């Protein structure tokens, strides 16, 4: 696995409580990335926010949603990112997906060091 030069970074924003087949959506997304052999995915939890998903929930709760905002960051070649998109279309019911360009300056892994 080699990743170098220009690549794409895809970021998905949604809520921590969002589910996909009874499983946290962020976990389902990371597992899907692994399945597709994507170079890496990382989930970050925000401390406050609003957006596509939280705004919709507001009228019901009369306040900001309690579920924290979550961002999944995925980096790989454009081709690889494209293979992920159809799955995300299906899985992410409410949220935001943004793609930007990045330059990979270093991608190292040591085979066999961790097992």
């Amino acid at each position, binding site marked *: 696995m080699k990743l170098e030069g220009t690549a794409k970074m895809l970021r998905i924003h949604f809520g921590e409580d969002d589910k996909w087949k009874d499983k946290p959506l*962020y*976990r389902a997304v990371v597992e899907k990335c692994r399945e597709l052999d994507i170079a*890496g995915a990382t989930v970050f939890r925000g401390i406050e926010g609003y957006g596509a998903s939280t705004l919709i929930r507001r009228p019901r709760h009369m306040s900001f949603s309690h579920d924290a905002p979550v961002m999944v960051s995925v*980096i790989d070649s454009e081709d690889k990112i494209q293979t992920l998109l159809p799955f995300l279309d299906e899985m992410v019911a409410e949220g935001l997906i943004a793609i*930007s360009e990045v*330059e990979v*300056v*270093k*991608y190292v892994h040591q085979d066999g060091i*961790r097992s």
Partner: protein
Amino acid sequence: MQDTTVVKPSEASAKGAGQQDVPALKRQGKAKLMRIFIGENDKWNGKPLHKALLESMRANDIAGATVYQGILGYGANRRIHKDSALHLSHDRPIMLSVVDTEERLRTFLPVLDGMVQQGLVVFSDVDVIKYTRDFQKVERRKEARK
């Protein structure tokens, strides 16, 4: 917090000036954002790698860096687990976000190369809008008053 009653606010009485007296300076321009993806358990000389990186960036006069802790993930160092799809790493993912000019970040890369044994480093273009305190202006004013 200052325990002072202002009787007559005046620009000239900058004695013991707090930060609020220093005028804001807005700077804009192109810069680079460097993101470093590593693991929480990664070490450098017995110290957590993200801490070591932060210290080394400070020592190298890099403008600023922030460490984020992720809740789940996999990457370069966990690719060997490919066969067991559900085996996600126990050490949490860490991302450092560093902003400075491309030149300064590139000069720092050799240092980074020596420290990051496994991980991913990417650059992206950013437009910087930076708000700082204009200490130089205060100094100039002080000089002018002398």
